[in-house]
């Protein structure tokens, strides 16, 4: 909202320059976002918080200025009118909950024309376009007091009665902005005997607009229910200075006064022959008071403010103070301060006027709880491992569109949780998988000419079986070729399933997870721990790669449920004594027909080699010229050791020979 320095000065003696005033207002909670010197005045643009509709007026801001600069607010009440005639207009309010108070002032014999220079200038300074003297005066009074007014051309109304009612289904109105509006029962309208003539609290109708030919007007000053106005505004997509204030709450106590102020300005600048006044509804709101314990204020703020200063600050802000007991004040709340309901609300007022900057700095005694957050610890351990393995963390959107999910083949079988009010298609559903987001990140990076992409994300996926569920999930994507420049020259490593497996092994080893299996299902493999499916490794299908615009590359992905693996982690370590006696290593080289699983070989050897065989590892693997087609060459390293003695060659010989024989017998290997 905009106010000017000179306008404020009409309500309070300001002895400080505009810049200093702006700083003081900012530090009191009226954030001045711009200060501009214009036409011999200063325009302050202030951001008003939604709890303070009273600040949406020059008067309200002036009251604040008076409090923070310790001056008195100049009363500017218009002289009450003597001999005011009651007109024969009837005002009917259909439901008093929709409209608390409606007043109508009939002003006859006016002359519509341009506004006086000072009025036009002042309105323009605060960003309000000048229309004509009548409209300008209603706007001026609104800006000054915060109470919205509306002027109807009386001769275009049926003068018998004004009805405040809900619109009928199918009812229509053309608003002042020239738009035809279809109304319904949620919209509150001002109507005459025959038809709706304005949308209550939002905007008047074009038909009853004040024009240069208007001779007589009906000046409306009313208070409508904030929620009703809010719904109208939302339903019609129509916001105005009036609706903005009504939604936040208009002071019942200012209605008559503002109407009177406008009438007097009209009398002064537009001629007037006769004025009549009618009203319906509450004239005043109930008086309230809130107890303030000044000792409590000191406890909450951490500073003691002198009682005299407390009383002075509150009374300048318009509160009525009564001392009830030592430290106890009974604080009468003015009608424009509907936001003040509790003692803390008053404490905030004190702190604001005293100045937040003058409240000291202290440190509380924290009583820490040392229970560790297991899930967070797991997440951060995994992230550290992955970063150590050279992967970059990404963060992708949790919301996505159904089309992408379906076209990538991930919407199938899962009904993703839908968003009721997405702004765009990309926000239609909550993702049930991390894969599409990672796929897009891979694609983007290949477009940026990356040769190799290794990324991961840890975040929730969303599943909605019976109730919406979140599952903390690790997603990994590997693709492209990683180059290493070593002493022997360039070495290239093309990403593949075994790279994913290596990552899984590293993570599981670090987390103490054992007994997991990878179940090969062709272009994907399930990861299971003790028969529970915890994750999936997969290679994206050609169709998916095509959708993602990834060419000539395979993309390998992993999805692992961190919620599921959490219970399998064993992070307590136990020391195993180092071997006391040296062992003997023996290699077995052989060629193996394709189709046999290396896993099965390792299992067999470990079984057969007991008790002397303590470890067996694959140390070499090759395919090529020396190996017949359909075979692969493997070298296993067997390590024999004992806890009781140093083994001799001839002791292990029988075991080693047995292993070789078993390999031949069970797997048909050819030893080399």
């Amino acid at each position, binding site marked *: 909202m905009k106010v000017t320095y000179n306008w404020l000065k009409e309500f309070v003696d300001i002895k400080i320059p505009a810049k200093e005033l702006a700083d003081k207002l900012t530090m009191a909670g009226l954030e001045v976002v711009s200060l501009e010197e214009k036409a011999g005045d200063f325009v302050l643009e202030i951001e008003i918080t939604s709890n303070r509709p009273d600040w949406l007026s020059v008067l309200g801001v002036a009251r604040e200025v008076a409090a923070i600069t310790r001056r008195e607010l100049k009363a500017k009440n218009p002289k009450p009118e003597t001999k005011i005639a009651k007109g024969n207009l009837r005002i009917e309010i259909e439901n008093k909950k929709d409209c608390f108070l409606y007043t109508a002032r009939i002003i006859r014999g006016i002359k519509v024309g341009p506004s006086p220079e000072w009025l036009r200038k002042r309105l323009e300074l605060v960003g309000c376009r000048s229309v004509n003297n009548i409209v300008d005066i209603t706007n001026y009074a609104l800006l000054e007091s915060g109470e919205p007014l509306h002027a109807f051309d009386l001769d275009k109304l049926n003068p018998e009665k004004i009805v405040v009612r809900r619109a009928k289904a199918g009812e229509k109105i053309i608003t002042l902005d020239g738009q035809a509006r279809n109304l319904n029962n949620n919209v509150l309208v001002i109507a005459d005997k025959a038809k709706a003539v304005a949308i209550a609290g939002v905007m008047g109708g074009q038909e009853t607009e004040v024009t240069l030919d208007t001779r007589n007007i009906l000046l409306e000053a009313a208070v409508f229910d904030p929620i009703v106005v809010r719904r109208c505004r939302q339903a019609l997509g129509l916001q105005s200075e009036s609706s903005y204030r009504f939604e936040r709450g208009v002071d019942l106590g200012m209605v008559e006064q503002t109407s009177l102020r406008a009438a007097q300005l009209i009398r002064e600048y537009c001629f007037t022959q006769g004025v009549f006044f009618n009203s319906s509804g509450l004239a005043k709101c109930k008086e309230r008071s809130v107890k303030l314990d000044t000792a409590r204020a000191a406890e909450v703020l951490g500073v003691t403010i002198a009682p005299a200063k407390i009383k002075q600050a509150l009374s300048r802000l318009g509160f009525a103070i009564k001392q009830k007991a030592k430290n106890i004040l009974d604080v009468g709340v003015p009608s424009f301060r509907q936001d003040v309901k509790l003692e*803390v609300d008053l*404490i905030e007022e004190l702190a*604001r006027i005293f100045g937040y*900057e003058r409240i000291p700095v202290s*440190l509380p005694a924290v009583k820490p709880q040392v229970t560790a957050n297991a899930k967070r610890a797991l997440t951060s351990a995994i*992230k550290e491992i992955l*970063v150590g393995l050279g*992967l970059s963390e990404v963060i992708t*959107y949790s919301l996505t569109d159904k089309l992408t999910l379906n076209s990538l083949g991930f919407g199938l079988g899962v009904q993703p949780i839908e968003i009721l009010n*997405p702004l765009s298609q990309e926000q239609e559903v909550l993702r049930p998988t991390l894969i599409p987001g990672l796929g897009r990140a891979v694609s983007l990076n290949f477009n940026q000419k990356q040769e190799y992409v290794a990324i991961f994300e840890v975040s929730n996926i969303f599943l909605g079986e019976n109730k919406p569920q979140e599952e903390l999930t690790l997603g990994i994507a590997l693709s492209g070729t990683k180059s290493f420049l070593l002493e022997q020259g360039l070495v290239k490593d093309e990403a593949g399933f075994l790279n994913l497996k290596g990552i899984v092994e590293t993570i599981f080893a670090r987390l103490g997870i054992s007994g997991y299996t990878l179940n090969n299902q062709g272009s994907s493999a399930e990861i299971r721990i003790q028969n529970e499916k915890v994750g999936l490794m997969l290679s994206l299908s050609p169709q998916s790669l095509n959708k993602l615009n990834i060419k000539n590359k395979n993309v390998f992905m992993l999805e692992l449920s961190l919620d599921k693996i959490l219970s399998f982690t064993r992070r307590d370590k136990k020391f195993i004594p180092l071997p006391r006696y040296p062992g003997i290593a023996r290699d077995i080289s052989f060629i193996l027909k394709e189709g046999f699983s290396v896993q099965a070989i390792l299992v067999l050897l470990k079984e057969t080699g007991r008790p002397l065989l303590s470890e067996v590892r694959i140390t070499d693997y090759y395919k090529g010229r020396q190996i017949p087609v359909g075979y692969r060459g493997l070298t296993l390293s067997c390590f024999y050791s004992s806890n009781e003695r140093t083994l001799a060659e001839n002791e292990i010989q029988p075991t080693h020979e047995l292993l070789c024989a078993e390999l031949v017998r069970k797997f048909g290997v050819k030893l080399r």
Partner: protein
Amino acid sequence: MDIKAVSAQIDADIQEINSLEALEQFRLKYLGRKGLVAELTSAIPGLPQEERARFGQEVNALKNKLLSLIAEKQKTLAGSSGQAAQAAGDLGMPGISQSLGQLHPLTQVTDEICAIFNRMGFSIVEGPEIESEYNNFTGLNIPLEHPSREAFDTFYLKNYTKMLLRSHTSPVQVRQMKEQKPPLAIVVPGRVYRPDAVDAAHSFMFHQIEGFMVDTGIKFSDLKGILEMFAQAVFGNDIKMRFRPHFFPFTEPSAEVDISCIICKGKGCSVCGRKGWLEILGSGMIHPNVFKHVGIDADKYTGFAFGLGIERIAMLKYGINDIRLFFENDLRFLRQF
């Protein structure tokens, strides 16, 4: 000549040598053009036929022994810069190492902030992203049909009534205060969602950190103290801070917190909009109505709460000018952190 005696003499001589000059003298004495080995070699042709081969071999062995002794001595005398150390070669060649990945800048900032509060004794807790309308609004004293909700435009779920994507991390306050009894000192990092059109400054998904403390005797001045320590830890000790009154439905008194602009040091620049101050967080004393909703006695306990946007802090800290960069995941961006 007795080769054995010569060999013994050599062993004795070499022991005495303790300089490179002396070693050179030694070499000349035995291996020089007129040295002992040359002399012995020239004597071979004069020997009887049957002795020549054996004697020749002995002389050869002696020569080899001398060469290896000299080499060894040279190494000892030259110290570590001896011949055996490899030359550094062309160090313009790329180093050989495993390349590390990196955490997302938002994770790095989150971790840093959590660690600061962790050191001050705060626990780190997380909460669900799908929330009830109650926890997101009502429990936090945000009336459903009130303009104060405008700041919290929210994504609702379609097939679940009154369920939404949390628009701030504050619902975790409600959850934690219901679950645990004071004293509480907790920080909550997490993702939040608001239906904002995406541009350089707005994103429909972003991250916040919420912090709160509840105990007897917690004061507004404590809030100032804790946040001042936090800001200095993140932005440096010479940072200035100011608390401005503001309005949040869930705190009273409420304050917005500014730090002196880290770019212009408070003089005014384009980053701070010529104000010299940067708004970094919202805070205040927990509203008694919030305590009422969670069943904490507001007469006995007080507390403070604060919330800040991680993207905002990361953008200030690293000088990033477009929030969309965080979610594009361009490796050229990510690798800078």
